[in-house]
């Protein structure tokens, strides 16, 4: 139980650091002076002190939607696979629950964008709906396929099974599922081939367009939600697709887990520096590749057993 609580607190604390780490690594790779690692915390503290202004046109949705964006993600954090051997975990949560919780959070984010009735919010919400409608089937397929390989539909149990006896004979379908999930990680968190998190140009932005009207505490909550979402995806990725290090004693296992999270962050940063942002109407192609790989992983598993 103590490890369960520790894991959740650790992930919450790591969430802003990971995003700032990606940002500073990108700046380093572009020969700029990198931002400090604790920039996420600084921004959070700054936003908490600022005055919260809500547009006159908004309904009551704007006042409670930020909390409803964050809370499904916080609930999801309780369902993640364990990172220490013998830690407590929730075993009955399957692919549909995780995907559903994440899309519930996305739903309220879209409502928030529509609520202020500004043009940008509408653009952002429609684009987000477009992307997340394509992400969800691929995500259900991928997580389902991995949990079939692990021999248990529950995600927590699947993570434990994968770490204990890794399915070497299903390596091919495992790899396909891994590729698919990495594309989803990039797409769902609005990283560069799909959405540029740094720009405020109306042609390109998706996530930023929805939250353009927010300020103060609400903005701080939404930014926390974005970082928590990234940490959820990264931790699902490392515990389902890089299932090593669970057998060591607790401090070493936690250190290995953190190292793996930073490894994912490095991969995302290198991908962001090396690719151009896709046109919005080319995003379905990328997500189509992800769906192909997810489906491929399932059929390779069922038909060939490889």
């Amino acid at each position, binding site marked *: 139980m103590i490890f369960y609580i520790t894991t959740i607190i650790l992930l919450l604390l790591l969430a802003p650091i990971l995003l700032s780490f990606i940002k500073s690594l990108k700046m380093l790779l572009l020969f700029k002076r990198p931002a400090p690692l604790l920039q996420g915390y600084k921004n959070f503290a700054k936003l908490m002190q600022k005055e919260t202004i809500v547009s006159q046109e908004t309904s009551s949705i704007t006042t409670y939607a930020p909390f409803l964006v964050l809370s499904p993600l916080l609930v999801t954090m309780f369902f993640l696979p364990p990172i220490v051997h013998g830690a407590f975990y929730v075993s009955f949560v399957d692919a549909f629950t995780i995907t559903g919780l994440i899309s519930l959070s996305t739903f309220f984010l879209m409502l928030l964008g529509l609520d202020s009735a500004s043009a940008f919010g509408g653009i952002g919400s429609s684009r987000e709906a477009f992307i997340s409608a394509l992400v969800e089937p691929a995500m259900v397929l991928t997580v389902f396929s991995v949990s079939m390989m692990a021999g248990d539909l529950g995600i927590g149990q699947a993570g434990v099974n994968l770490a204990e006896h890794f399915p070497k*004979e299903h390596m*091919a*379908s495992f*790899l396909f599922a891994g590729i698919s999930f990495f594309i989803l990680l990039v797409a769902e968190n609005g990283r560069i081939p799909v959405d540029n998190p740094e720009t405020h140009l109306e042609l390109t932005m998706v996530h930023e367009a929805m939250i353009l009207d927010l300020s103060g505490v609400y903005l701080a909550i939404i930014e926390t939600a974005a970082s928590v979402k990234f940490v959820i995806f990264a931790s699902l990725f490392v515990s389902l697709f890089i299932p090593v290090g669970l057998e060591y004693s607790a401090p070493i296992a936690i250190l290995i887990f953190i190292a793996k999270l930073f490894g994912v962050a490095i991969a995302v940063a290198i991908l962001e520096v090396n690719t151009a942002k896709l046109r919005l109407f080319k995003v379905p*192609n990328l997500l189509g*590749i992800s769906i*192909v790989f997810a*489906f491929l992983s399932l059929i390779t598993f069922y038909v060939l057993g*490889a």
Partner: protein
Amino acid sequence: MVDFFIGLFLASLITALFTTRLYRLLVWYSFNSLTLGVLALLIGIKIDDNAMLITGIATIVIKAIAIPYFLKSFSQKFHFIRQIQPNIKIQYAIILIPAILVFTFYLAKPITHMIANNSNYVAISISSLFLSLLLMMEHKNVAPKITGFLSMENSLFLLGITATNGMPMLVELGIFFDLLMAIVVINLLFRREEMKNA
């Protein structure tokens, strides 16, 4: 471990199908050949066949490094169009590729019992044969068609190393010489293409 590389082989071929840039396509082809060479090395170590080790090294040197390099330098020399749009729309390709895979996986099922070990790999190599055929079909330009031809050769080679317990080395060297001849022919084709462009 062999499963992992066979997965990478198929994955790089599928990614090549969605590529719209020539140099990126060559990179994927090179990666595809690299996984093939590593596979040959792994299987060669497993069945203790020195000839297969030599072919593995030759595959890495020739197909993963030399051929993509030459193709790239040819296309630079003859100023090729580097944007290669597939004729088949990606929406249809998304449906088509899994359909091909399911079809070939079931197609290969009756013959898999004839092969004692690695029976899955036959299905994957036949499906990659079909996928490289698709790569040849979906492009109009010469360069991606040639890449499709080369990756078709790759999947035949995969069939050779996985279905049999080591092909005779003479056959594989013959295939390599064939490939070199093919590259010479490709050079001629490129010249024709250049004359058409001019």
